[in-house]
């Protein structure tokens, strides 16, 4: 069992390394270096070649890419992502508070989404083919088809413009108190939750239906085990196990959703920071945010793997005994 866990952990580290390589390639090698990305054509037309070379030297970009990558990665693993190009502010300082704010909102969303999706998925799966299932299936397809930004904007129109219950735009600073942010998190959270509940519950429904059709459910039924106990004791664990990895990837979806709602509502998180960084072509900030997002996803995947190892005895003995 522990061998299996160590194995998955090493694999996760490998994936993170590959992510780092990829992030670096996409931003600093293929399009040229950080400066090439940063400078617009207008900038280049007013600067002399010497100016540019001097700037390149100041930024430490006049060394070969592998060395720059090594410098960047060795900083990144301890949370040091370098400085912004324009103001030379440490990137850690810029993203620290937004990161916490985003994590707070993301955690709220995940904690609400999971149980709701669970109940809906299991209910629809159990009543497969009945009216409940048809209604739920239709609702979930519509739920994940409507873009986050549309749901968010429409919620604003309804609850801020037509019925002025909430402010249309959140006004809060990066270092606002968590409780202050919690108070304004309702509409952003609902926006992301709608789509993700729809998605996850469909996933769980499929897992549930597959398990309900299995031989062991039939044996339990023919042994006189009450339905309630069959669902809770036999089916639920078996239907969750195969969806755990997909749930971990779902975190990646929440992150994408967060970026959108933060922009819609003006919530002071990483999304706002990211869009600003892309606009001002602050390469290092984008790198840092992308890398941190991947760390979170890989970490959640690792947790899912551990949960599977703990829950599924077949996987446990398969990886440790073979």
């Amino acid at each position, binding site marked *: 069992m522990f*061998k*299996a866990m*160590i*194995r998955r952990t*090493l*694999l996760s580290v490998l994936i993170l390394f590959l992510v780092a390589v990829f992030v670096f390639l996409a931003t600093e090698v293929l399009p040229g270096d950080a400066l090439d990305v940063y400078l617009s054509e207008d900038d280049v037309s007013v600067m002399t070649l010497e100016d540019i070379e001097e700037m390149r030297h100041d930024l430490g970009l006049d060394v070969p890419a592998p060395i720059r990558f090594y410098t960047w990665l060795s900083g990144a693993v301890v949370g040091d992502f370098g400085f912004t190009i324009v103001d030379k502010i440490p990137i850690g300082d810029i993203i620290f508070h937004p990161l916490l704010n985003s994590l707070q909102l993301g955690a709220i969303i995940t904690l609400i989404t999971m149980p709701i999706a669970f109940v809906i998925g299991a209910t629809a799966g159990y009543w497969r083919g009945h009216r409940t299932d048809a209604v739920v299936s239709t609702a979930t397809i519509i739920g994940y088809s409507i873009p986050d930004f549309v749901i968010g904007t429409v919620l604003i129109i309804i609850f801020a413009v037509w019925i002025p219950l909430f402010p249309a735009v959140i006004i809060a600073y990066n270092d606002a108190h968590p409780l202050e942010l919690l108070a304004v998190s309702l509409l952003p959270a609902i926006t992301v939750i709608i789509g993700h509940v729809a998605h996850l519950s469909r996933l769980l429904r499929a897992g549930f239906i597959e398990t*309900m*059709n*299995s*031989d*062991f459910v*039939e*044996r*339990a*039924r*023919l*042994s*006189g*085990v*009450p339905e309630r*106990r069959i669902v809770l*004791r*036999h089916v639920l*664990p*078996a239907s969750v*196990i195969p969806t755990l990895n997909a749930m971990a990837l779902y975190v990646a979806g929440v992150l994408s959703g967060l970026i959108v709602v933060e922009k819609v509502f003006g919530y002071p998180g990483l999304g706002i920071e990211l869009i600003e960084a892309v606009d001002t072509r602050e390469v290092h900030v984008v790198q840092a945010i992308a890398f941190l997002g991947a760390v979170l996803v890989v970490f959640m995947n690792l947790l899912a793997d551990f949960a599977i190892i703990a*829950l*599924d*005895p*077949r996987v446990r*003995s398969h*990886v440790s005994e*073979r």
Partner: protein
Amino acid sequence: MTLLDVRDLQVAYHNPSSGGLTLAVDGVSFKVDRGETLGIVGESGCGKTTLARALMAYCRPGGVIVGGEVVFDGQNILELKDEQIRELRGSRMAMVPQDPLTSLTYHMKVGPQIDEILRIHQKLGAQAARLATLKLFDGTNLPAPEKIYGRYPHENSGGQRQRVVIAGALACEPDLLILDEPTTALDTTTEMQVLKLVKELRDRLGTALVYITHDLTLTDYICENVLVMRDGKVVERGTASQIFSAPQTDYGKMLVSAIPRVDADIAEPTPAAEKKTEEALLKVEHLSYRYSQRWSIEALFNPQEEQLAVDDVSFELQRGETIGLVGESGSGKSTVANIVVGLMAPTMGTVSFDGAPINMIDKFRSEDLRRRIQIVFQDPLSSLNPRCRIESILTRPLKIFFGMSGPAARDRAVELLEDMELSADLLKRFPRQLSGGQQQRVAIARAFTAKPDLILCDEVTSALDVSVQAHVLKLLKGIQVKTGAACLFISHDLGVVKQVANETVVLQKGQVVEAGITRTVFDHPKHTYTQLLLAAALRREDYADLTLSAPEGSSA
């Protein structure tokens, strides 16, 4: 005294394409007395599994009981409320399903799954249920019940799992026990142990049994009365010995005559010995194979498996002859076939074909060598590309091996189909549109497109119904004689091997335990394992005791 009275029972399934109902069980009536054992026999698709479930007022998803009565102990259970039926199931009527591995909940230990039944029906406390379960395990001859209790289903062997399921079914000492092909997923020798156990338990507890099976010989062993089903209807009924000795209907006669019997006389004498002077076509010398792991992160953490899949196997096959390679699952017989055909390379030893070594895998073999050795696989459907018409399935190898195409290739394909007693109309069909027997005949025809010198048959009949088996074997033998090809016939079924093989090699755990002229091996088996296999095939109980001393694998 009648325990179960089934009257004109009809069960149907929703047909998703037409939206209507298709009858799977069509007006079946029968009675079972207390303590009686009734066998229900039929080939795949005859509705016997559906019938078995309907006896407990249960249908699989999409199924519905559309008519008739199931009177259990004086009460039509089809009229009961869900809750009342639930109380009957597991306590007064119980079922042993076909595959014990998938029928036990994989994420629960096996002990608690039996406790559950006792706690529900007998309202036992946790401790009392545990003790009762251990006692049941002991009663089903499970070694070390305490240990088994704490294991997960996959950690037990097939035989152990089926004993666990039987223990669960008998937990509340039901009046009626329905067994749905309880030994089909097991090896022959294990099957015999389980059967013997069922018989003992029945005699001890006086339980009435309904035994569902495709295997007529089993009913001869365990049942008093037998129903033969076909297309959802009962076509023949009587005592087991009646049906066996004097079947009334054509279908019954065909079914009985088709059984490959181990004790049957071989029709033709075996002309083996004098040919030995010639050089053998296929020579297998000290062949060993070990599954090795390729380099990966996994391999770093997992030590190499030491067990050899094939361990020092030697035999020779003469031109035009047939060797039967017999053994249970895991005996290495399919590995031998895979090595000969070139899907795997041997770890040690040599395989020679027509005097030249052929240890290399297929891509290093010459086209001519690949052509001369052909293989027919176990599952006929999966061996034909579902997206290709039969025509292209048969003409493709003709093009590759002989450069034939167009009408010439088509004519040759038709000729081969005719050898297999199939009509040329099939050329335009897709494999899924054919029956299992037809598919396997097409697969055999495809192997013979290459005009092979050696044909490997890997369990070619085990996926087929008995009535189809006999026909396919006859055709196979016919085309083999016509083309003069030698055949390496791999099977777990001794009866089948006896019909086709001149010589027989018995494998156990990768090793040859006995080899020789088929008749000698069958009439005077020397090795205990061969004796055991034969005894199991003959349903002889005296030999079944031998198996109890034989080691049963501890994990699957």
